[in-house]
């Protein structure tokens, strides 16, 4: 039985690494006594993956886990158990969906990420966003381990807006360009000639590779 599960983590857990998060969910499922499926082989490990890794320090209100169970479990039991083990913890269980066993891993289907960025200081953020939306093309230098290349940011951004110094933007998080919110913020700074600093970043939602923005549990 294959499942996609959605959780939120409190802001307190922004500084646990991807590996730590993975282990935390694994233990959560063990505490919930789910019949986890394990890989075959000499060193079996649970068939469990997180949808999208995040830089240390980002908060997440949308952690998705792609999980296989060894035997079917009634959805009502699943919901009840996950709610129980997240009670009085820094995790909240937000929902579950059954998916076909042969579907691609969730991580491979994620195309967009919705971020909220609390920006420090007052200023011209709204104008910068306006300038960005109005422009035909906005190029920035995308640095990776091996190269630096000029990339047009326009197709990498959907739905950008500012609400009291809080930037809300849906950014590309799939190949060929994974656009990080700090890169977007630097780009906006370039447009207004100011330097913006993020107080914190929250991942609000993930969207799948689809024409319209569709969350994994939709």
């Amino acid at each position, binding site marked *: 039985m294959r499942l996609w599960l959605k959780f939120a983590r409190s*802001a307190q857990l922004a500084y*646990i690494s991807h590996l730590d998060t993975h282990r935390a969910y694994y233990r959560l*499922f063990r*505490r919930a006594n789910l019949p986890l499926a*394990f890989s075959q082989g000499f060193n079996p490990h649970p068939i469990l993956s997180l949808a999208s890794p995040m830089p*240390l320090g980002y908060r997440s209100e949308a952690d998705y886990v792609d999980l296989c169970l060894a035997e079917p479990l009634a959805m009502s039991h699943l919901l009840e158990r996950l709610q129980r083990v997240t009670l009085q913890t820094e995790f909240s269980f937000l929902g579950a969906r059954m998916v076909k066993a042969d579907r691609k891993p969730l991580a491979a289907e994620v195309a967009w990420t919705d971020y909220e960025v609390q920006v420090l200081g007052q200023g011209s953020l709204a104008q910068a966003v306006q300038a960005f939306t109005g422009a035909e093309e906005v190029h920035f230098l995308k640095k990776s381990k091996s190269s630096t290349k000029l990339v047009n940011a326009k197709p990498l951004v959907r739905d950008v807006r500012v609400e009291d110094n809080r930037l809300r933007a849906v950014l590309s998080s799939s190949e060929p360009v994974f656009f990080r919110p700090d890169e977007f913020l630097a780009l906006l700074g370039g447009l207004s000639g100011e330097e913006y600093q993020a107080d914190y970043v929250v991942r609000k939602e993930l969207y799948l590779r689809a024409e319209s923005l569709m969350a994994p549990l939709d």
Partner: protein
Amino acid sequence: MIPKEIERLLPQVTKPARYIGGEINAVRKDRGADQVRVALAFPDTYEVGMSHLGLKILYKVINDLPYAAAERVFAPWVDMAAKMNAAKVKLYALESFSPIDEFDLVGFTLQYELSYTNILLMLDLSGIPLLAKDRGEQHPLIIAGGPTAYNVEPLADVLDAVVLGEGEEVVVEIIQAVQKGKADGSTRKEMLERLTGVKGVYVPSLYEPLYHEDATWRGLKRKLPHLPEIVEKRVVAELSPNYIPTAPVLPYTEIIHDRVLLEIFRGCARGCRFCQAGMTYRPVREFSTHTLVLAAQAAIRNTGYEEVSLSSLSTMDHSGIETLVRELVDKLSCEGVNISLPSLRVDSFSVQLAAEVARVRKSGITLAPEAGSQRLRDVINKQVTAEGLLASLQGAKRLGFKSVKLYFMLGLPTETKHDLDEMLGLIARAAAILPVAVSVSSFVPKPHTPFQWEPQAAMQVLEERQQYLRERLRRDRRVKFVYHDASTSFLEAVFSRGDRRLGKVLIAAYRLGCKFDAWGEHFRYDLWMEAFAEVGLDPTWYANRERHPAEQFPWEHLSPGVTREFLLAEKEKAGLAMLTLDCAAGTCVDCGVCPALAVGTVTERGRGQ
């Protein structure tokens, strides 16, 4: 929520998950007006402190009290400590993020001497004066307990009070005394005097040390008439299942022992003469198999861990070990839980049992013969023979183990080159059976052991002997050889039998920058020697001096219940290479603990009879 000023530091330090709290099973209590707030402080990293069973037990015992709340605090790693200092962020507890100096009590675990500078570091980061005499009414009481409390004199100027022995009951009495004191509006001084009425509590500032002209210890002068002359340890007569921490705090970052630690009994009466724990934790008291199986199941349910490690001084000595292990495997293996046996006795039975539970056998087993020759093993009362060891290895090989780790100690009393040659011979015979990893530590004479009178071998001698072994083992491909730095063992030897004057050295060393001394990369022998020179004390006088049988010691007012007569008799038997049997097998050997503290050995087998 993590306060902003703390959160800002997190991106700048390694392993920030050490500093965020919010773990599963962490207990966050609402604050009541008359609640006694206790910060359980472990003077090492999060990963080390979170692996410590004593801390888990006290956390549970205190948080089970409706009128008290325990929180945790660990030594921030050097990068975080520096950032906190620079940003003027005070050391805080992980449950509430309250600064440590707002607590009523701060309770340090005294696990090893080399963590003492970290106690100073943590006080300093909390804005609490390092010396007890400089603290005021607004400061918490600084209390400590743990294995090295049995000679706490080097910390006497730092600690307000010290607890001897097992904490489960005494911690409740201390909290009640503090609660009463708070209600009465007692001063700090009154509070400490009240604490002297709690059995097992030592308040060093109420005693003045006296020395002979040759600088040896003469004793303590009591400043108040009603103070106990000798503070006896606390011991829990019968271990209650309520003390087993079945819902330990579950860390996010990986800790040293990231598994369920199941204490299956307390104490060990094998009587190895170098071992302090073997003397101070007596008598042996076992949990029943029934209790342990239930506790293990609960702990697995509450943590999601995949491993239960049976942790006690000599795990295989539980009188019902075989049934216990079989039942644990029976009840837990279907949930994918592994049972591990960290300390193995050198015998075929142990190896057999270890093989049954080991999921992956290629990992290997660990055995500790401690000394190379039969004579020297008799001197230390380690009842192991070469034949027994080799037979165990043969068994291990047959059962599929791929390697063995052997632990030895260098510099044991009466050790000669001849003993080293025998050690080499034993290693060669072992290596003919299985590949061997040899790990050699240096003997540190400990207070309250039969070897408390013995000198530690000079550092140079220890180093020569390490090299002697290394050169002879180097060419043997089947043998891996590691040894511990002799200078850390030397410092440990100084502090483990130190007196109150060493407190000045400790402070001086901390001021010079010493911290995390147990971490090789931070241990600064040069700075320590500078500190000794500054204070004008000779460390070799403490470490390398042979004591006269009649000499009084600065730890004899702190009693684990084992008598000086027993220790002296054991010292003499050691000289004659005579053995003393384990009393848990049935015959009391008169160490003194049971009559002195009105307790007795409790074993599963005994219960069954």
